[in-house]
């Protein structure tokens, strides 16, 4: 059943928003599109669609990479660097990039998802190499830490918060904070500093990015057992402002509230970005199109090996006297044609929940389940504005603009990093479906029409920007179904997650969900690791 506009606003923004939502004109006098992943083919696959290619439609390839998101493209680049160029990247969507994809309107590029990467610490050498290739890192400091070209570091002013009717600098709601609030914030930072200083017996940090560099020491992994909110309370943190800041961080990075985010993941967000105790957070690298810049770079490196609109419908390991291989069945969503690949190796760079659906007898062979891999859904809206929202006072427009009372995450400004401070711009608005949305609610929301969702976006933004409806010329909305892995308590430390990265014969796995958190660095790390697995196995195949 379809929701009424009122119900939709109440569901997504909460009851208080109804007050403003209903007084404003319900008609949205603009145009736009409702975009989304190819649900069709996904659902057909779920319902058993398994086409067979004709006998003359088969060809051989050394490596087939399933999925053209950050992990798959990173794996492709790593293969090329390992002198393996006989591979294809098969991407279901027509546009590669997964949740890092981006788009462009006129000369304004904007993101559809992930939009920044903190400057990597010195020990994340593979990522520093990638950024050096891209010209983002100009040189290395004496300690090996990267020197990032100024134009790629997020420009000041970086972030602001709409709190009590006014824009203030930073994300912490400082206005009217009591001495106790400030003390708690300080104490929280000191505790985070302790984690930043922590080392295990082999010198590994408590929290590191990529997480493969971090410790697996019990003391730290125990933190995965409780929620971030429980951890805060357990350490005597009750300041509502601190709880808000931490909750916002969890929603922003994981699409979960602090009550349902693993404390390990919550602390990872804060502690992994510190070079040393007491240091400022690592600066952020960003581009107008967000992480789409990295995707576009990787896609260029890979060239025509990247095939979009290619749905992989089945992966079947085959043993033969000519050697073992994997049969990869591909369905071209544009031409509807079915082709087959005989690949020496497969890098499965799609979300883990698809593994049992696509890989023949996966569960029987590996005895692995994927039911603990849970994914959150998001709405992302891009608002094309003919001009900036007028503002007479308060902190000026920033890159990241957050509203305290909102269930959305606020918006980022696409033109900020380009140095365009006047005239038309694109705002990218983010809305995570936290666990408070039940499955039914989620399904209802996914059925909402463009016009109704556009009204939700505008109602949310109308709070700080009353004139927003007059400024928007186009409003597109992207529905992300399985957007991000959810690091709920217990998942990171679960055996299921730990086992998921191990190859199934010639099928290797690479996706950020294997880390339990959705971060570009993790996807990149898994892509590189899976490519290394393949590269070290290939010479044996040639014998």
């Amino acid at each position, binding site marked *: 059943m379809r929701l009424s506009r009122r119900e939709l606003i109440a569901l997504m923004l909460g009851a208080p928003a109804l007050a403003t939502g209903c007084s404003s004109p319900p008609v949205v006098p603009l145009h736009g599109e409702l975009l989304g992943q190819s649900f069709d083919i996904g659902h057909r696959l779920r319902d058993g669609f398994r086409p067979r290619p004709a006998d003359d439609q088969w060809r051989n390839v050394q490596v087939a990479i399933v999925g053209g998101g950050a992990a798959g493209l990173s794996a492709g680049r790593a293969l090329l660097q390992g002198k393996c160029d006989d591979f294809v990247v098969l991407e279901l969507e027509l546009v590669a990039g997964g949740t890092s994809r981006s788009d462009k309107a006129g000369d304004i590029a904007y993101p559809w998802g992930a939009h920044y990467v903190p400057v990597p610490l010195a020990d994340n050498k593979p990522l520093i190499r990638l950024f050096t290739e891209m010209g983002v890192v100009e040189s290395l400091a004496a300690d090996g830490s990267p020197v990032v070209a*100024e*134009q790629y*570091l*997020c*420009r*000041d*002013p*970086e972030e602001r918060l709409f709190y009590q009717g006014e824009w203030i600098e930073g994300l912490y709601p400082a206005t009217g904070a009591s001495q106790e609030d400030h003390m708690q914030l300080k104490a929280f930072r000191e505790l985070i500093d302790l984690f930043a200083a922590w080392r295990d017996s082999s010198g590994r940090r408590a929290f590191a990015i990529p997480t493969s560099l971090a410790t697996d020491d019990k003391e730290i992994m125990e933190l995965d057992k409780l929620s971030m909110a429980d951890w805060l309370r357990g350490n005597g943190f009750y300041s509502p402002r601190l709880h808000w800041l931490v909750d916002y961080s969890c929603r922003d990075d994981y699409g979960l509230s602090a009550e349902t985010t693993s404390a390990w993941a919550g602390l990872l967000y804060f502690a992994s970005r510190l070079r040393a105790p007491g240091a400022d957070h690592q*600066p952020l690298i960003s581009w107008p199109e967000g992480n789409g810049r990295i995707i576009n770079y990787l896609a260029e490196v890979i060239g025509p090996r990247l095939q979009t609109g290619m749905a992989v419908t089945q992966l079947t390991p085959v043993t033969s006297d000519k050697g073992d291989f994997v049969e990869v069945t591909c369905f071209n969503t544009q031409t509807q044609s079915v082709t087959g690949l005989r690949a020496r190796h497969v890098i499965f760079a799609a979300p883990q929940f698809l593994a049992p659906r696509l890989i023949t007898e996966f569960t029987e062979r590996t005895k692995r389940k994927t039911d603990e891999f849970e994914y959150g859904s998001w709405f992302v809206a891009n608002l094309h504005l003919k001009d900036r929202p007028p503002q*007479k006072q308060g902190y*000026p427009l920033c890159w990241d603009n957050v509203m305290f009372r909102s269930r959305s995450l606020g918006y980022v400004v696409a033109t900020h990093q*380009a*140095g*365009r*401070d*006047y*005239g038309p711009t694109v705002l990218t608005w983010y809305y995570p479906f936290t666990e408070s949305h039940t499955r039914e609610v989620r399904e209802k929301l996914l059925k909402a029409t463009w016009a109704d969702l556009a009204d939700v976006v505008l109602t949310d933004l109308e709070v700080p920007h009353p004139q927003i409806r007059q400024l928007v010329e186009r409003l597109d909305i992207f529905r992300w179904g399985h957007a991000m892995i959810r690091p709920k308590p217990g998942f990171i430390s679960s055996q299921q997650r730990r086992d998921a990265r191990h190859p199934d014969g010639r099928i290797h796995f690479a996706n950020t969900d294997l880390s339990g958190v959705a971060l570009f660095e993790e996807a990149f790390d898994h892509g590189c690791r899976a490519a290394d697995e393949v590269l070290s196995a290939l010479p044996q195949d040639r014998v």
Partner: protein
Amino acid sequence: MSAGSMNRAPLVLLYLNVLIIATCGLVYELLAGTLASYLLGDSVTQFSLVIGLYLSAMGAGAWISRFVVDKSLARCFIEVELGVALVGGLSAPLLFAAFSRVDIFGVVLYGFVFAIGSLVGLELPLLMRLLKEHLDFEDLVSRVLAFDYIGALLASLMFPIFLVPRLGLIRTSLLCGLLNAVVGVWGTYLLRPLLNRSGLLSLRIRGALVIGLLLIAFAQAERLTKLSEESALGHAVIHAETTHYQRLVLTRSEQGFRLYLNGHLQFNSMDEYRYHEALVHPALSPIRSPKQILVLGGGDGLAMREILRYPSIESVTLVDIDPGMTSLADRFQPLAELSKSSLRDPRVTVINEDAFIWTGRANGPKFDAVVIDFPDPGNFAIGKLYTTRFYRMLRDRLNDGAMISIQCTSPLVAPKSYWCIVSTLEATGYQVRPYHAPVPTFGEWGFILASAGPIPERLTLSTELTGKSRFLNDDVLNGMFVLPHDLVRVKTDINQLNNQALVHYYDEEWGVWK
């Protein structure tokens, strides 16, 4: 009169009321006219409109007065007085406050004019009907009108001689409001026999409230005045407009006219030659025959005027974001004269674009000299034009040996800001020579001469300029590079896009935001 009769004795006092009412009525009209021409410019149109509207509103008020029944005549008169006191008295502070905050200021202004006019138009007809029992018709008309016109004369003399110069517009407005309120409260005594008991108390309470409010406002007038642009700028506003990018205000005083952008003084026509000679000639004089010049900012055309003095100039590109600024001389003749219409010179190309975007575009033209005349770094959008990133992009716009001169706020008031720009240029690999010049309106002002290559030790003014410049000669030119003790270098961060250190220094030193 049926409800009773007023005392004979204070009849003469009622004439005094007429005088006060008439004086205040005309002062409101003059206030509105002055305010309109200050804020909106074009005083002939504004005065003409305000007077016409005001008089017609008075007519409307007079016509409405016929609907007031005899019984409530006295109460109505007193209420009208309190109304005039409130609307008229607060008109100047409210209009000033609205000016910078309301987009459709004209509507607010003329709304006020009409409201005051209507109320003032009600006053005399009501008063004449109150008096008609005590006087015969001829007497009534002649006396009331006589006092009315005397009041008008009083107002027109006092307004320019005493009220505006001594009290200013806001206090004048509040004072007249107070007088009207006093007349209203006084009326509750004079006309007491005509008022019923219960209404009386309510009228007096309201009167006291209005007087109290106006007194508080009067006591706070200094602060109210600070909120208004006019007194912030200190001189009569002769032209004001809000462009897409900034607020342009021109004011005039006996010494000349001044341009303000977002409330920051850009130049005073009296001494701008010092600033612009100091800005332009250090960059152009070391170049043998400057041909291609770039001006960034400088939309007033005054730096351009100095550049065009060099006969070798072939083309000058001026990049200023605001078309409202680069076309100001077309709308404001004194600026056209002052700038010698330099932006209309055939050698000049004006580009209205953010200099950051323009400079960063690949494969752009190159120049022999760059004159940078951006506003002070008072916000992040301007702050980016002083970053290492910007200066790095600018290097691709330089011919060999090109010189750059930059206006850099006051090194005396804002030493961290000034030296931050110096350090930023040095960090980008430029040779840098800081210099300063006294500009009476600004005080001690700072500039920087920079170049990707060496900068000559001693500069010589071009022969074409010798004797023609009003400020510089060779000695003064070189003297600018000698820094006194109080302009000693301070250590600062480097201004980068991701820290905007300069905007923070500038904010701290000039206190742009409270």
